[in-house]
């Protein structure tokens, strides 16, 4: 891409990014219940569903694993569904709506730090998965024995990032074509896996297989899985706000989300758990060839690798477009290819020791729970209790000092104090790195108390402070 072309594309994406904040009108809403259910189903059948299901094998067997995944996902997806109802109602872009809670500058750390880091993490995980898939194919075809941490995984991972770079630089048209074929292909992979699993193993045999590395305390092991399933559900939150704004009604958006991200995701995760139990390995790329044989297994692994490129590309595109939205000048004018290079380049660091994030994937999910759950609690209190599901659209776009959602120079300090309280509660209950946990954790999880405490602190601060000093545009 020439410098001039890149600058033109940068200008175009900046404009697109800003125009993307324009509320969607009724005539532009394209997804009724069935359409949106299909979209959600396509999203749910992704490679990370196998990863999440596979990681359950460390702590629980089949029946308890399914139960913990259902419980965690039910809570996580429920809060995702209700926290994005406003996006459907007003057709607002995800972070644009949150200006009414955190302030127009207050949302910037959520975009530039929180969302950015989470997406870098996902990109790293998926490129390692691509690398592991490539190494497994090579080992099978060439009779080599490269390990999961070999330099070849790094090399394949870099190839994944390089191909993704080309796709993203080409823009949304390339992404659209990739997307259309990936989800149906992964649905076929799911059916093939179920067939091969039950061809050789009965349900009774699967339920008899023990987990790999349990703590030995059933309640604690159960809650470990509930916790990362919760986080897995919660991890949909930023993407979901942007998708549901295209739903024709709030009811359609909510139920399609429940079917796709709860029901279908759980099916994919359960297949992942069954395969992980059968082979005693949490890594999805290690199952395919032993499960289906060389020919089918290699095809599946190539497809999994292809699917990961799609996901990496979609994430990179969305994150980089979002980075252009909120008025940071040097980002808005940065060359598009340079921005993509920086984003994807940062993920290379996670490839240096692939097992660090990939084999501890569930710990990455814990970090997502820690990051997103307090924010979701705060948003729910603000939207339902204080705003009574009614937002002032003019105020959301009014950047002038003293406008209703300006709070304190564009920052809602109360929201950040509440968020800090939520994070502190999480840290007091559970350490995502060492897995240290306090006694209440096994009964409460860490994500739920974090969400609840952030919501309560926000409620008290807003009621006793923010409203009294006339900030936030609260009308009652």
């Amino acid at each position: 891409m020439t410098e001039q072309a890149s600058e033109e594309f940068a200008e175009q994406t900046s404009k697109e990014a800003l125009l993307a904040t324009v509320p969607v009108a009724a005539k532009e809403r394209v997804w009724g219940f069935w359409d949106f259910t299909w979209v959600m189903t396509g999203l749910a059948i992704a490679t990370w569903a196998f990863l999440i299901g596979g990681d359950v094998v460390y702590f629980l067997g089949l029946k308890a694993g399914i139960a913990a995944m259902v419980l965690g996902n039910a809570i996580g997806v429920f809060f995702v569904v209700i926290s994005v109802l406003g996006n459907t109602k007003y057709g607002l872009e995800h972070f644009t709506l949150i200006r009414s809670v955190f302030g127009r500058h207050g949302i910037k750390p959520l975009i530039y730090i929180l969302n950015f880091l989470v997406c870098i993490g996902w990109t790293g995980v998926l490129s390692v998965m691509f690398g592991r898939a490539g190494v497994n194919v090579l080992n099978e075809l060439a009779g080599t024995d490269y390990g999961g941490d070999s330099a070849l995984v790094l090399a394949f991972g870099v190839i994944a990032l390089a191909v993704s770079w080309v796709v993203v630089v080409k823009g949304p048209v390339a992404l659209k074509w990739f997307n259309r074929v990936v989800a149906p292909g992964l649905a076929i992979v799911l059916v093939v896996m179920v067939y091969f699993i039950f061809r050789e193993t009965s349900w009774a045999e699967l339920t008899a297989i023990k987990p790999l590395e349990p703590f030995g305390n059933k309640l604690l092991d159960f809650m470990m899985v509930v916790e990362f399933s919760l986080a897995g559900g919660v991890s949909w939150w930023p993407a979901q706000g942007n998708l549901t704004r295209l739903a024709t009604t709030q009811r359609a958006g909510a139920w399609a989300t429940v079917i796709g991200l709860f029901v279908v995701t759980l099916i994919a995760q359960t297949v992942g758990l069954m395969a992980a139990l059968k082979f005693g390995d949490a890594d999805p790329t290690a199952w395919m060839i032993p499960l289906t044989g060389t020919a089918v297994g290699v095809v599946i692994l190539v497809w999994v690798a292809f699917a990961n490129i799609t996901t990496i590309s979609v994430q990179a595109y969305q994150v980089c477009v979002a980075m252009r939205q909120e008025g940071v000048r040097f980002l808005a004018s940065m060359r598009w290819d340079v921005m993509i290079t920086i984003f994807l380049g940062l993920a290379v660091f996670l490839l240096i020791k692939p097992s660090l994030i990939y084999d501890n994937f569930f710990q990455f999910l814990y970090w997502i729970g820690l990051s997103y759950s307090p924010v979701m609690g705060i948003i729910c209190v603000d939207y339902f209790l204080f705003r009574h599901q009614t937002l002032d659209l003019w105020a959301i776009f009014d950047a002038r000092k003293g406008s209703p959602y300006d709070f304190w120079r564009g920052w809602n300090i109360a929201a950040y104090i509440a968020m800090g309280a939520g994070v502190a509660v999480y840290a007091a209950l559970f350490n995502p790195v060492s897995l240290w946990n306090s006694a209440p954790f096994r009964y409460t999880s860490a994500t739920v108390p974090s969400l609840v405490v952030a919501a309560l602190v926000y409620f008290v601060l807003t009621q006793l402070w923010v409203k009294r000093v006339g900030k936030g545009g609260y009308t009652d």
Partner: protein
Amino acid sequence: MSAYMTDSVGAAADGGGIEGGDEVRAAILQRLREVTAPDYVDPARKDLTGLDWFALVGFMAACAVIFTVWGY
């Protein structure tokens, strides 16, 4: 509609307070006028009913309880 909202429609009619270049500001302004007009109709504006909430909470809670009892 809040008092501010009524005031700001007038104040923002020239694009005041809306960020972005001329084209972006014009697009946002035009859309805000459209979707806040008194005669604007959008089925998405209808909030979930009590029955919707009951069904949603009930379904998720039932799944969580039934599977926990079955599997744990």
